[in-house]
């Protein structure tokens, strides 16, 4: 399941887009790229990505702004900020806006892959957990309904 996870790489630097996406493809992910905030929002709206790697500075908007926009459309997507401009203010803003992880360039590639896998596993687990919950809920509800129906039948029969 995790091998087929899809990732959106958002960076204005072509070299970074290329190396990161190639690395991720080699790791077995489905990779898409966006070079600015606008493209990223469009792509995220059209398709579900399990994870997004976001550069903190983009030509058309700040990475933190993009976070807000993506949170509205795809709340379940894992968001990782990649920044070359480490500043406390940025980090705090990013975390407040629901970022899942915050990395400083240059990132060790193995480290990046490990983090991505960890985040995706967590997501998968949560997703399975919630599916299970839904299944349980449906089953319980179904039994409730069944019981209710039986009761109704019994009363009507009595009449």
């Amino acid at each position, binding site marked *: 399941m995790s091998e087929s996870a899809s990732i959106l790489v958002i960076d204005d630097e072509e070299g970074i887009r290329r190396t990161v996406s190639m690395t991720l493809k080699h790791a077995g992910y489905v990779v898409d790229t966006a070079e600015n905030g606008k493209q990223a929002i469009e792509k995220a709206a059209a398709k579900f990505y399990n994870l997004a790697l976001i550069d903190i500075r983009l030509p058309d908007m700040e990475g933190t702004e993009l976070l807000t926009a993506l949170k509205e459309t795809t709340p379940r997507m894992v968001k990782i900020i990649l920044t070359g401009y480490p500043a406390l203010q940025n980090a705090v803003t990013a975390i407040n806006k629901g970022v899942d992880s915050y990395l400083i360039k*240059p990132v060790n590639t193995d480290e990046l892959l490990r983090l991505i896998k960890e985040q995706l596993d967590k997501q998968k687990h949560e997703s399975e957990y919630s599916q299970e919950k839904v299944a349980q809920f449906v089953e319980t509800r179904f039994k409730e309904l069944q019981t209710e129906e039986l009761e109704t039948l019994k009363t009507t029969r009595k009449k």
Partner: protein
Amino acid sequence: METLPYIILAVGVSFLAIMAAIRFTLLHHEARNKVSVLILLGSVIWLLMSALVVASDSLPTKLVFYKMQFVGVVLVPTTYLILTMQLSGYERWIKRSNLALLSAVPIITLLLIFTNESHGLMWSNITLNSVDPFLPFNENRGLGYWLLIIGYSYVALMFAVVIFVRRVVASRSIYRRQAVPVIFVSCVAWIFGAVWFLNPSLFMYIDPTPLVLTVAISITLWKSYLLLPGSEIIPVAHEMILDSMNEAVIILNAQTQIVELNPSAEQLVGHNLSDALGKPVEGIWTEWADVKKELDSGTDRVKEASFGVGEKKKFYEIQTSYLSGITSERPNLLIILRDITERKISDEKLRLYSNQLKEHSEHLEELVAERTNELRKAERLAAIGETAAMVGHDLRNPLQGITGALHLLRQESLTAEERDEMLQLIQSSVEYSDAIVRDLSEYSAEIILKLADTTPKSLTGEAIRAVKVPPTVSVQDLSQNHPTLKVDTERIKRVLVNLIQNAIDAMPQGGTLMISSRLWNDNVEIAFTDTGSGISEKVMKNLWKPLQTTKAKGMGLGLPICKRIVDAHQGTISVKSKAGEGTTVTISLPIKPVRVEVLQK
């Protein structure tokens, strides 16, 4: 009675003289003035007695008055000599022994006169003269008369005049005023006496000396000639000054025995003058050793000594001089010690305060320097921090690319094409990093221009070729091929590339960039007009400041570097912009830079 007018005159003059003497005595009390009064008294006795001799009838009566007349006759020269000594500054001669010696002659004279009957040394064969009422006697004058009366009188008179004249010649003006009446009196008495003596008939046989003398001295005393200006001060001054001086005055003789101590010195030494007189100073005064040591040290500086310890410590300034003694051959040493403790203490305090002040001011300077340094350091650190952050951000992107590429290159599964691409990526990342570093040093290092001839068209053409123009942007180069200008072509090209890139960046959705040139007052103006987003007021404010950027990439050194390069050419760079409509950047370069100089940041 033909003698009556003379008698009346004599009595009248005597009366007036006594009035003058009383007035003078009441006005002035000094010892010397008593002597002047004594002279006057002598001359009055002389005058009155001589008048009584004339007035009386019988020989014995006349003889009594005649003898009494000599009391005045001997009193005048003696007292006159004493007054002269006082006035001429020879007061120290007036000692008891000298006075006894001086009065011996008149006393002997008077004794001989009153006992003349038994020995006849003064005169003999005295009879009444009935011819002339003014010449009472016929007598034979004896040796005693000539020697003791006439001789003594004139010698005393002469002596007085001699020392007086000597003193007046050698002395200060203060004595001159007093000398005039004294010499006047002596001369009058002398001349009249001599004239009468040589030719008594000239004055109808009356001795004019007592009359003239009485009048002269009365006038002198009445006008207070003797009092001008030193007469009152000088006799008291020496003693009083010495006694009232705050300075301690010590006089030592050649054997360093104490000769004089004034009250201050008595206090300082701790002995009365009566105890200390004639004793060696080292035996009496414990601090003498310190004083002597100080006196024997160098000659130039002011000598000082301090006695006592702690609170009671006193400082003295010491002055010395030698008094040439009259009796001893070796001079006496005069030592004056002035108490300068208060001055010393205030000096010390002043020194202390000024030292403190100096310390404080020095410390203040240090403090200011320290703070300034800290501030500078902080500023520099802040600037470094800011720059480092910008450089860091800018360098991190190519580093990320390189890291990623290296990781991929280690993968076995990479195709040859992908491998090439990664190597290319590393190459371009390194180049980009290099450009960042170059920009930074370009901005911070000094600019040395390498001038060469070129034209606007040539510059813009090269610049456009160096920029990757996106297809959405159309560039219209209307710049001209003249005039020829002398600039650092490499650097100006960098400026133009930067401006073109900025214009392209401002038109992400595409647009038109128009480049034009013109000659204007020996300057070449090159203008870049784009149809981009324009520059907001907020951004415009910090346009030329380093590290200010609106771009995702770059450190914000582009425009500051452009400005520095244009400045180095003595040119100008200006920006006009309207948000949403576009921007025009104009650089103006002199055809030939007026002066080429090294510009530092």
